[in-house]
């Protein structure tokens, strides 16, 4: 009787929770509405793991409240067992439930970590393109070495093509993240991290930095556009034709602190500039510039504002 009662309640609660989750998922324009295979993989694992755990967690919560209610002090109709404090069988069960759940989740972790390793190239018949990413104070520089183009605060990728990102930072830590494409990864000075993503449809989305990087952090978003192959080729041509060159001087200016840098494009003067930045042959961003300090011990409040 008791068991049936519990299971009925669980079923009811399970339904309403699922309904609520569906509502939240459908109203979501973020990581649960992915537009590429990596994001789909991430979201699937997130949702599967949530469901597995809810199957354990919801009955447990119900059991806790049922127990407190049934054995409330005013309910003298149930037995009182003032010395009962051990049961080998219950102990075995309460150790097994979490262990089994975690073994299951552990399998998910193991398989998922390898399958969605950011460094692992995506399976695709199409050759991947390379995009090099440099986090600057407080903007993103994207370099297309094969195409000879660089952009600031806009990332353009061809639809259906795996993109191999090589990511570094020329100042402090940042995290490169396009929520609807999937996995994020740190951009760190003097180090190169790698990430493979792919957009499955033509769309306009956005990316951001997920690691606080100083006063201009809140505006470290960038536009992400995925274009069909022909549109992408056309965009490359127009960017290469119209844009100024990204040479040492232009890069040095970019490395200065600035906020809300408008999306823009450059031609590439040096195809190896990314390696020079990552190995710090080009010195890292200078940080806040020594202006006339208004307050002792305080950093200049408007550093880098445009």
């Amino acid at each position, binding site marked *: 009787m008791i068991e049936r009662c519990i299971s009925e309640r669980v079923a009811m609660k399970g339904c309403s929770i699922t309904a609520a989750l569906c509502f939240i998922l459908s109203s979501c324009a973020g*990581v649960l509405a992915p537009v590429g295979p990596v994001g789909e993989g991430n979201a699937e694992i997130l949702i599967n793991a949530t469901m597995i755990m809810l199957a354990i967690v919801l009955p447990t919560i119900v059991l*806790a409240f049922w127990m407190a209610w049934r054995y409330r002090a005013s309910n003298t109709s149930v037995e009182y067992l003032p010395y009962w404090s051990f049961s080998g069988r219950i102990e075995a069960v309460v150790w097994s439930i979490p262990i089994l*759940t975690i073994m299951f989740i*552990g399998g998910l*972790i193991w398989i998922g970590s390898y399958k969605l390793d950011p*460094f692992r190239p995506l399976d695709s018949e199409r050759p991947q393109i390379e995009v090099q990413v440099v986090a600057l104070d407080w903007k993103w520089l994207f370099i297309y070495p094969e195409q000879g183009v660089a952009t600031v605060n806009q990332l353009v990728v061809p639809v259906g093509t795996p993109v191999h990102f090589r990511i570094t930072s020329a100042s402090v830590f940042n995290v490169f993240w396009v929520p609807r494409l999937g996995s994020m990864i*740190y951009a760190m000075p*003097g180090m190169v991290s790698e990430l493979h993503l792919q957009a499955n449809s033509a769309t306009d989305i956005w990316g951001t930095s997920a690691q606080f990087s100083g006063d201009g*952090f809140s505006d470290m978003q960038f536009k992400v556009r995925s274009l069909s192959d022909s549109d992408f080729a056309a965009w490359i041509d127009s960017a290469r034709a119209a844009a100024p060159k990204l040479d040492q001087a232009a890069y040095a200016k970019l490395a200065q602190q600035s906020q809300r840098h408008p999306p823009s494009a450059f031609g590439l003067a040096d195809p190896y500039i990314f390696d020079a930045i990552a190995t710090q042959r080009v010195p890292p961003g200078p940080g806040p510039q020594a202006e006339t300090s208004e307050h002792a011990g305080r950093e200049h409040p408007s550093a880098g504002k445009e």
Partner: protein
Amino acid sequence: MFGKLDLSAIPLSQPIPLVTSAVVILFALGVVAMVTIKGWWPYIWHEWITSVDHKRIGIMYCLLGGLMLIRGFADAIMMRTQQAVAINAEGYLPPEHYNQIFSAHGTIMILFGAMPLVLGFMNFLVPLQLGVRDVAFPTFNSVGFWLTASGALLVNVSLFIGEFARTGWLPYPPLSEATYSPGVGVDYYLWAVQISGVGTLITGINIVTTVLKMRCPGMSYLRMPVFTWTSLASCLLIVAAFPILTATLAMLTLDRYVGWHYFTNTAGGNPMMFVNLIWAWGHPEVYILVLPCFGIFSEIFSTFSGKPLFGYRSMVAATLFICVVSMLVWLHHFFTMGAGPGVNTFFGISSSVIAVGTGVKIYNWIFTMYGGRVRLAVPMLWSMGFIFTFIIGGLTGVLLAIPPADFITHNSMFLVAHFHNVIVGGVVFGVFAGMEFWFPKAFGFRLHEGWGKAAFWFALIGFWVTFAPLYILGLNGMTRRLQHINFEEWTPWLYVSLAGVIILILGVISQIVQLVVSILEREKLRDVTGDPWDGRSLEWATPSPSPFFNFAVMPNVEGEEAYWGIKLRAIETQQLAPEPEYAPIEMPLHTPVGIYTAFFSAIFGFAMIWSIWWLAIVSIVAAFIGFVVFAWRDVHEFKVPAEELAKAERARRAAREALLHRLSSHGAAI
């Protein structure tokens, strides 16, 4: 002469810190004036400031933690209002101010709010539960407390003189290096945390030694109350983890002050090393906070169910399991740094495995209620709220421990919601539950029930209304630490979250009103028995409030739940145990060395922050002299005569006689 310090360090152009500091200073001056006029200084000096009594120190820890919780909550209110008004706008807090606020919020809540509260409970309870008269090193204990208070003082001074760190509560280099953070903010952080960290380490050593060496006769390890077990586990973690923090911050200090290159961007420094080291402390730190709270809940579930804790031994095993494994999970804070799938798998699984220990504990609490007579008093309400909140927080925690799921939730508001879910649900609820439960033991009267219930419901509802929207915002791609928001579609959720904060404010007000009302009605709420909740462990064997010597005669423990056993025997035989023989005891003398050392440590920290080198040297030498003088003292204990003990013990026995009659008359239940 004054290093970097001059008058321009005072933020005259910024109204918020200026007004806040002015109010705080005026309030402090008002308190000092009142104490002076009323002539309370001798009492406060002799009975509290210089006290080495573990109960007094515990209470002062809790007072400090409570004040800092309010300070940190004020920061939280500012953050939530800023994010609600700064949607496609700048809001009222510019980045250089907002960034200090979230950094201070995290630092204060963890290190100066939660930590002192938890240490306060351990200090107050562990010797009482072990049936001993003090901790192993009473004076050391006082030094530890005052060092923690010095750290808290430095953090708060930064509001008025200079600035606080703008780097987040863990100052990741290279952002926290001199190149990118040239101001004194990070230095305030470093010295405040460094000084209070030494204090915490001292308390950790103290409690570990107390538990290992000072239990009363018969108190074997497997008869210790679970709170004492969890305190031991927590302090073992303190001893293991805090030296890592000290070393890590010392390396960052060397980078900033003398231009070394442990973590710098250039010259071979490696900032990732800082991240590894700081989390090798940071993750055990959250278990340092939550384990004693698990202990608090264990005591409450058993007492208010009128039953022993279910599965005591597996509870102890689960505690030690968590204690060990928590040292092996730190990398889950940065799966997204690209460590590779093998490493991520290891740390993902080790992090999830902790949930086994926690899961066992939750089932054991639930089965403690089975067959009980559950009284839903305020401590029990907090405990039920904890179970619900903490289970959900644990669920989202396991999600974050799955590397591929972490790749889309790391550093997002989902993460923010998760760790508040476990820290508020676990630690804050635990501390409030414990406060309701042990308040009579500390002060001799109970807290007002009605206002306690109000505080609980406001806190529980306010918590969920504040943080549930943050989960959704995180899944929508909102990252943490945004000073303004460029996405209008997030507005509704940010407003809901702000509404939650308003409910939480009502909760905080209820908590304060509860304290005031209880003090006013203290005669009505007085606990004359010393055992207001029908308790089971030894602290309830003492009168409320406990005398400074705790036990006139050392108790003799004959089983688990020491006091419960004594009580049952008394009811069975219808009389108390025969009156013991009283022998004089020796108690440690009070000493000002704690506050003296801490005072000069605070000056030292301040001098280092502002590069006032001569003052730094003077103050560190002065602090050291304090130790030397103390070490050469001749008399360090005083005798409590047997007559005084006999008098106190007879009063206690009279109260117990009355309790015995009452329990026997309607004690048929037992």
